[in-house]
Each structure stands twice: as structure tokens, then as C-alpha cells.
């Protein structure tokens, strides 16, 4: 049994190994690039320059950081639980890394397109919550403990909207195979038919990645880094690596499932390079959005975050799934999807506004030209 890689027939083991090897290199470079890009973009949002010192325009900053982290002392607190503390980086990193296996980079380049790709992704990626809890509990640190518990609560709560929002899109394609989903959007991406699901996916993805405004587990101003407050050096960088790898994976999944991956808008008969451009533009746009949101919004509080997931997002995903089912079963026109999506999104925004602007009026500032004497 043989497989084909770049036109060469090779053994399936070597094929798999080679592809995973390419992914390793790709991931490392991407993560470093993402860190650099994030710093630059955030800096521009804040009218700063960002890294400028290392290499031309600071491009080697990530390399320098990585070298520094490798050279840093790797400390383990005396009171920490050795096994959980030492194993947590693996449990955080490996599941994220596994997510790379199913990514549909291009039409004909991917590690493997699994028939149950989306399910596989969902199953694998949620494991890393365990790693966060392990890191939090194992450190024997109160901040880490609180951060780990928060990570667990947040992770499980946003897992459901994320999964169901992806499922809503997969229903339309009738497949969990990511390539099939991309091909199904050859002309119109699902973001058009499923704006609500896309929004929910985006929000839930932010929460899964512990990105602002959902960076509660790692909230710098409260729990000082959360679960990995006790980690240093290379062990800490594993969390960082996982975080940015997750950012990339989720952006690519979002780009594939809702934005049409390498296909839309020019159809699928494209050269490899055009596909590359399209897929990077879409994933890059999502990543930029993540950075943009990071620069603009404050952090939610844990109870608000949980309420938002359970009381707002989750019921709406159910509604979306039911509507999708009805449309598919009774062959209603697709416009119904768009309409319900827009209505649902409007409802979601309205609920959010209502929840925030509670009945109480906006505090009026009593201006007095002459203070009562």
C-alpha cells in the first residue's frame, strides 16, 4: 500500500512521517511568525512600533525569544505535585498538535482528510482543557489554582457552542469531512447562510483559545498568568506554542467551514498558489480579527462569561440546528437560512445589549454650574 507525496510513491509510514514532519516545521515557523505579527499589529493599534530591535524591523524577535526561553532556568516549585506539574505541558500541547492532522490547507495538500474530520478535531482539541487544569492544580499556587478552575469552567462551557456551531455548518454540507465542506462552498461561503453560527463559532473559539475578552483564566491583572504562573523557561513556552498553534488551527477551521477555505470565490479549479493565497487571506483575516478584538475589549468576568455561553449562545445554536434541519428536510429555499441567521444574530445582539444595559438608566452626571452653598 503506497501513498503519494509530491509525486513520489512512498510507503505509508514514511508518507505519514514526512507529512507530520513538514507540519512540525510549518507549525514552528507559523507560531513564531504569529507571535511577531501579533506584537506588531497590537502595537499599531496602540500607536506603538512593536519589536524593532532584533533583526530587520524586529523580525527575529520570536527567534530571540525562543532562544532565551530555551536558555532559561526551568523551575519547579517545591510544593508542586511533580507528576501533574511536569506532564501538564504535554497534555496542553499534544492535543493541539494533533489538530494539524485534519487541516485542509489546500485542495491536494493536507496531512489526512478524515471522513469524520470535524468530530476528530472537536474530540482531540478539548483534551487540552485537562492540561490546563493539571497545570493549575499541580503548581500549588493559588493563582494557578483559580486560573485552572476558570480554564476548566470556560473550556467546557464554550466547547458546546463551538461544536454545535460547526455542526450547523456541517449539516448544510452533509459531511464532517473538511474537504467536502470546503467544496460545498465553492461559490457561496457558509458565512452567508449561517451568520449566527459563524458569530457563535468565533466567540466560542476566542473563549477556547483564552483570547480576550475571554482571557479570564490567564487574566494578567487578576491571576497573573493563571495556570502557568509557576512555569518558566521552555516549559512555559510550550503553553505559548499551544496557544498560538490553537489560534492558527481555529482560524483555519473557521476559514474552511465558514469562509470556504481555498475555494470560494473563484471556484475550486485553481492553481495551488491561488489556493494558498486564498486560504492564507481568509485565515489571516480571522487572525487579524482576533488581534483586533484583543486590542479593543476588556475582559469579561467569569460569571458573565458562563452566563453568556449557557444562556445565550447554547440555546441559539440549538435553534440554528433545528432551523437548518427544517430547511434541509423540507427543501425550503436557502434564503430562509439567511433570514433566520440574521434574525438570530439580531436577537443575540439585542439580548446582549439588554443584559448589559439593565433596566437602570445610564448614570446621569448631575452637572451643577453653581454648587449649592
Amino acid at each position, binding site marked *: 500500500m503506497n501513498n503519494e507525496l509530491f509525486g513520489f510513491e512512498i510507503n505509508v509510514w514514511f508518507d505519514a512521517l514526512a507529512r507530520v514532519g513538514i507540519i512540525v516545521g510549518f507549525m514552528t515557523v507559523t507560531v513564531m511568525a504569529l507571535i511577531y505579527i501579533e506584537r506588531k499589529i497590537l*502595537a*499599531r*493599534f*496602540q*500607536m*506603538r*512600533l512593536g519589536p*524593532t530591535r532584533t533583526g530587520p524591523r524586529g523580525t527575529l524577535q520570536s527567534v530571540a525569544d525562543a532562544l532565551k526561553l530555551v536558555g532559561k532556568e526551568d523551575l519547579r516549585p517545591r510544593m508542586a505535585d511533580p507528576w501533574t506539574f511536569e506532564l501538564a505541558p504535554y497534555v496542553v500541547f499534544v492535543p493541539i498538535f494533533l489538530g494539524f492532522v485534519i487541516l485542509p490547507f489546500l485542495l491536494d495538500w493536507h496531512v489526512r482528510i478524515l471522513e469524520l474530520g470535524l468530530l476528530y478535531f472537536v474530540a482531540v482539541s478539548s483534551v487540552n482543557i485537562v492540561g490546563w487544569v493539571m497545570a493549575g492544580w499541580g503548581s500549588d499556587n493559588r493563582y494557578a489554582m483559580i486560573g485552572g478552575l476558570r480554564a476548566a469552567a470556560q473550556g467546557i462551557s464554550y466547547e458546546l457552542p463551538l461544536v454545535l456551531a460547526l455542526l450547523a455548518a456541517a449539516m448544510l454540507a452533509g459531511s464532517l469531512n473538511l474537504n467536502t465542506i470546503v467544496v460545498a462552498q465553492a461559490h457561496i461561503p457558509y458565512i452567508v447562510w449561517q451568520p449566527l453560527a459563524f458569530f457563535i463559532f468565533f466567540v466560542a473559539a476566542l473563549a477556547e483559545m483564552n483570547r480576550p475578552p475571554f482571557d479570564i483564566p490567564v487574566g494578567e491583572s487578576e491571576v497573573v498568568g493563571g495556570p502557568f504562573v509557576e512555569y518558566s523557561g521552555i516549559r512555559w513556552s510550550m503553553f505559548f506554542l499551544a496557544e498560538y498553534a490553537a489560534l492558527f488551527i481555529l482560524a483555519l477551521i473557521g476559514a474552511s467551514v465558514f469562509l470556504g477555505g481555498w475555494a470560494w470565490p473563484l471556484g475550486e479549479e485553481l492553481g495551488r498558489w491561488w489556493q494558498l493565497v486564498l486560504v492564507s487571506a481568509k485565515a489571516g483575516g480571522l487572525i487579524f480579527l482576533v488581534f*483586533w*478584538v484583543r*486590542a*479593543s*475589549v476588556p475582559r469579561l468576568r467569569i460569571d458573565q462569561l458562563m452566563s453568556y455561553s449557557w444562556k445565550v449562545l447554547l440555546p441559539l445554536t440549538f435553534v440554528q440546528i433545528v432551523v437548518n434541519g427544517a430547511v434541509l428536510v423540507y427543501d425550503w429555499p436557502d434564503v430562509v437560512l439567511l433570514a433566520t441567521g440574521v434574525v438570530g444574530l439580531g436577537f443575540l*445582539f439585542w439580548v*446582549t*445589549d439588554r443584559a448589559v444595559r439593565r433596566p437602570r438608566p445610564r448614570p446621569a452626571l448631575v452637572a451643577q454650574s453653581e454648587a449649592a452653598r
Partner: protein
Amino acid sequence: MRGIAKSLLTTLSTFTRRPVTREYPDVHRPIPQRDRAFPLLLWDTEIDEPFCTGCHACERACPVECMTVLMKDNPNHTSQGGSSSRRKIIDKFWIDYARCMRCNICVEVCNFDAIAMNNTWQGHELSVYDRSDLVMDLQQLLAQHRAGDIKEWVAQ
């Protein structure tokens, strides 16, 4: 959501603005002329000796006691055949820049206008590895004005 949208637009508008960062070692901040860095002694170029007579006025007025002043008889005084009208002159002068709080009082109490805080020299780039390196002696305190590196600005 409207508020979040407003936030996003605000950040987007600043995204397009020019960064305010100055790349420090390459680009220096323009220092206002009045910037009082650290106290320095002035050099009387006409007679070629310091203005300071070592009268201890600044030493007494210094709130943080960062100065040490010692005076001596001026060998250049007219009575000794020299050209100076100063009977006494500064012998030793130390200022601990690490302790100086830049309050300008020494300048205000000086009767001879011998000390100034308006230099444009190294005043804000004084990083050293040893705190005792920040203790300046007479030669170091005089060197800047002697070399003409100080832009004059006298308060009042």
C-alpha cells in the same frame, strides 16, 4: 454590541495613525532648554577658575545632603599675585547624583551663580553599574561647562 463596535472602530482609527514611539538610542527626545538635569559647577573663563568659592551655602540648603564642599585659600588671589578677586576658592566638591533630587535649591541659594542645573549634557543618561560612580568630583562637575557644553538658562 454598538459599544463594542465603537471600541473596534476607535482602535482601527488609531491603527492608521502614526506611531508615537521614538526609537530611543537612535532617536533622542528633544530636551527642553529648561530641563534641569543634575547640578553642575560653572567655570569662570575670564579668570580661568571656578566661580565657586566653597561657601557651603548649597551644601547647607540641600534637602538630601548630597553635596560635600571644602574650600581653600585661592592661590590665584590678587594678594598672592594672581588675577582673581576670590579670596577663597573651592577645593573639593562632591555631588552624589544618585541622591540628588533635582530640586534646584542649590542653584537658588548660590550667591556666586556658580552652580547650574540647566545642562544639556549626559544628565539623563547616567546609567552606571556602581552607585559610587555617580558621585561626581570637582573635575567632573566642572568639565562640562569648561568645555562649553552647557546651554545657559538662568531661572528668573
